[in-house]
């Protein structure tokens, strides 16, 4: 294995200009987890020639290396990290820049200003409230306090309200009304009335209420933003890890690592064993076996030789290949599937979220009630000013905190709980859709099964004989054999013959492990197999199969217990699919499905009114993933599938699927409870405001009280019963 990775690679394409004429490099180092790793990595990299600084960002698992002008070798950094046991991937400078979170900072700053406004207007509100209860505060002092309150509160409210005003304006221009419209109208109207009351030396000013409403809503807004930002940065990490670079073979066999997007048609690329084909390509030299399981769902490796076309995403198993690119990455076989994904994403974006559905009822009701208060109050003999103040009080006390704060709080609690169980949630809407699911469609290869070969039961003696040779090889079949045999001695004088097998000396005897032809025997049947034999002695056969994940049957049973029906759609041939279906306890299965078939089945189910959860990993699933009501993909899935999925789960178990459904259902229940609580509160508060029983003090208490209740209720989401 040393043969290949010792060839130096050039990561020049990933350098970006840094301060003072130098350059810098961003690397993703996923294994840095603790203070010890961080110190070790930084010290090792700083000791390299040409490096002026190295700093690890532990939260994002990134390393930024600064180089002296004209010096520095990125490849040396990657190698040094590899020697320490930290594999790393260079980050595209474009992606690194996109990580800069402008929107998040604007929200935090708005929140800080609102926080400042709340604290400081309250300072003036407390004497005013004391005055309401007959404490001594002369009219002149009260007006002074009101002026202070307005001078501090109004600019803060205007600044902190900008995110809401902008969004309300956008939605009004599109002739729709979102939640931000009543918020903006409420805040602006409250500010205007409060100023006029101050000038007219009136009783009720609501500057503090306007700012604290914005403060609470901004907390909700920021939580929601963080949820999205974390999911998208995790997605960017996966992207960087999965399709990192293509190795370009230049003049005089110089190897250059380039971002996949820069590969042009006709470029010669080097694909080592264990790497995926970056683009559709024709094999120029070399022979090997390709694993197409993520592309088609077939488990058996396909032998390829010079002149053959192979598709992007196929995993090279045994020999080093030189291939000629026949398509750019955006035109590769992926493109057709990307179109399916796009279609599905459009149908998903039409999904109306719970909070928005609630807002669609809430907004007209509240505005009608406020308007009725004004018109009715005026008509019933109140003067216009008093009627308007009561209408504003209605707008204030019916603040939509349950929608603006509690809904994001439910989602962030749910996604944090799932994150700890190894499930990444991409959006709050995804959780809501997952809670509604009533039918689950599984892909077989890589989802119900592990997606990698496992040795079938074999004679122990044969296993012990072949193991020393298997341990010396990197071929996945040999790895599976070695894993079964456990630790033990290694063969000597090992030579790996690309696309054939390995040869070495065990106990002083020459032996071979590899394809049937490599050992000079006839292959048996269609199973994936490996042969072993000493020179001129008996040959042993090892058969491999893709085994079911250990908890597959349990998970299917758990899904049935929750009232969900289960179905398997696989691109693999009939025999293995029926075996896997029987073992997992699924009666409803189809084999040999094309990607279009899978998407069509999901469509047909949706047309019958079923809400489908699709669980798939391959490119052949991407279309179905995008079309399904909700979609999950394992962390081992291809990038396109992970992009199409709403949730990504990691690990060798399927248990997270059940966890995710449970948490999503719990989140939905909490959200509905919160809307119920909010409705109850409004049923009491709104009539009180209409009758003029609400003053600024009562409004402040009621508003923060109701926000606290719905937020505490949100925190119960997904707690283990």
């Amino acid at each position: 294995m040393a043969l290949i990775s010792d060839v130096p690679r050039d990561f020049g394409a990933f350098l970006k200009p840094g301060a003072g004429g130098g350059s810098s490099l961003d690397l993703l180092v996923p294994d840095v987890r603790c203070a010890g790793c961080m110190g070790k990595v930084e010290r090792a990299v700083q000791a390299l020639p040409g490096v002026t600084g190295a700093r690890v960002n532990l939260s994002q698992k990134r390393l930024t290396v600064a180089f002296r002008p004209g010096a520095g070798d990125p490849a040396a950094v990657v190698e040094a990290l590899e020697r320490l046991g930290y594999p790393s991937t260079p980050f595209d400078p474009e992606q690194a820049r996109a990580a800069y979170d402008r929107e998040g900072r604007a929200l935090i700053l708005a929140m800080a200003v609102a926080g400042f406004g709340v604290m400081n207007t309250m300072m003036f509100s407390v004497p005013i409230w004391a005055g309401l209860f007959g404490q001594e505060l002369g009219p002149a002092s009260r007006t002074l306090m009101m002026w202070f309150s307005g001078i501090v509160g109004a600019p803060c409210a205007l600044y902190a309200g900008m995110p809401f005003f902008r969004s309300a304006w956008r939605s009004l221009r599109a002739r729709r009304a979102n939640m931000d419209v009543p918020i903006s109208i409420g805040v602006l109207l409250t500010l205007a009335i409060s100023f006029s009351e101050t000038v007219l030396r009136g009783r009720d000013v609501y500057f503090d209420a306007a700012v604290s409403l914005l403060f609470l809503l901004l907390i909700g807004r920021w939580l929601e933003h963080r949820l999205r930002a974390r999911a998208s940065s995790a997605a960017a990490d996966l992207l960087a890890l999965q399709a990192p670079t293509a190795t370009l073979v230049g003049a005089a066999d110089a190897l250059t690592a380039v971002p996949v997007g820069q590969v042009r048609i006709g470029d010669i690329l080097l694909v080592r064993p264990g790497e995926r084909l970056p683009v559709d390509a024709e094999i120029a030299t070399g022979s090997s076996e390709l694993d197409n399981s993520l592309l088609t769902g077939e488990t058996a490796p396909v032998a390829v030789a010079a002149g053959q076309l192979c598709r992007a995403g196929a995993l090279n198993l045994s020999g080093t290949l030189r291939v000629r690119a026949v398509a750019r990455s955006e035109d590769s076989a992926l493109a057709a599937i990307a179109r399916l994904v796009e279609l599905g994403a459009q149908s998903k974006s039409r999904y109306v979220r719970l909070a928005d559905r609630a807002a669609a009822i809430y907004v007209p009701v509240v505005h009608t009630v406020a308007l009725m208060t004004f018109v009715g109050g005026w008509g019933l003999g109140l003067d216009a000013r008093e009627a308007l103040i009561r209408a504003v009080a209605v707008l204030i006390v019916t603040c939509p905190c349950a929608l603006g704060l509690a809904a994001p709080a439910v989602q962030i609690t749910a996604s944090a709980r799932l994150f700890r169980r190894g499930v990444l949630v991409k959006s709050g809407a995804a959780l809501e859709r997952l809670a509604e699911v009533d039918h689950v469609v599984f892909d077989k290869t890589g989802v119900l099964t592990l997606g990698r070969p496992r040795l079938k039961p074999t004679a122990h003696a044969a296993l012990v004989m072949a193991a020393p040779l298997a341990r010396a090889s990197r071929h996945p079949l040999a790895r599976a054999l070695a894993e079964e045999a456990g630790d033990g001695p290694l063969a000597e004088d090992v030579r790996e013959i690309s696309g054939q097998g390995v040869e070495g000396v065990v106990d002083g005897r020459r032996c071979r492990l590899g394809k049937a032809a490599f050992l000079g025997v006839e292959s048996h049947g269609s199973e994936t197999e490996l042969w072993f034999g000493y020179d001129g002695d008996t040959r042993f056969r090892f058969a491999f199969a893709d085994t079911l994940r250990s908890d597959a049957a349990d998970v299917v049973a758990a899904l049935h217990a929750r009232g969900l029906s289960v179905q398997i759609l696989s691109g693999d041939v009939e025999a293995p699919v029926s075996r896997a279906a029987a073992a997992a306890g699924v009666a409803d299965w189809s084999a040999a499905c094309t990607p279009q078939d899978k998407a069509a089945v999901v469509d047909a189910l949706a047309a019958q009114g079923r809400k489908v959860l699709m669980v798939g990993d391959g490119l052949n699933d991407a279309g179905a993933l995008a079309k399904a009501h909700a979609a999950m993909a394992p962390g081992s899935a291809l990038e396109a599938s992970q992009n199409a999925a709403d949730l990504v789960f990691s690990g060798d178990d399927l248990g997270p699927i059940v966890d995710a459904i449970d948490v999503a259902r719990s989140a939905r229940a909490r959200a509905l409870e919160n809307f119920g609580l909010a409705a109850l509160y409004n049923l009491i508060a709104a009539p009180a405001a209409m009758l003029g029983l609400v003053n600024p003090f009562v409004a402040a208490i009621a508003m923060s009280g109701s926000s606290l209740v719905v937020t505490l209720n949100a925190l119960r989401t997904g707690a283990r019963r």
Partner: protein
Amino acid sequence: MNIVIFLAPFSLGLGLMALAAFWWTLRDGQYEDPAGDAARILVPDPEDRPAA
């Protein structure tokens, strides 16, 4: 009561200072890597702290 004329702006000034300080920490990138900053106190030789 006249003291309010002096005290209110004074306390507002203190509040504004806190706001400005927060704004500075935000600009300074002090919230970029909370996990790393917490772990860094455990790394030996803080005087060799990298400058990048």
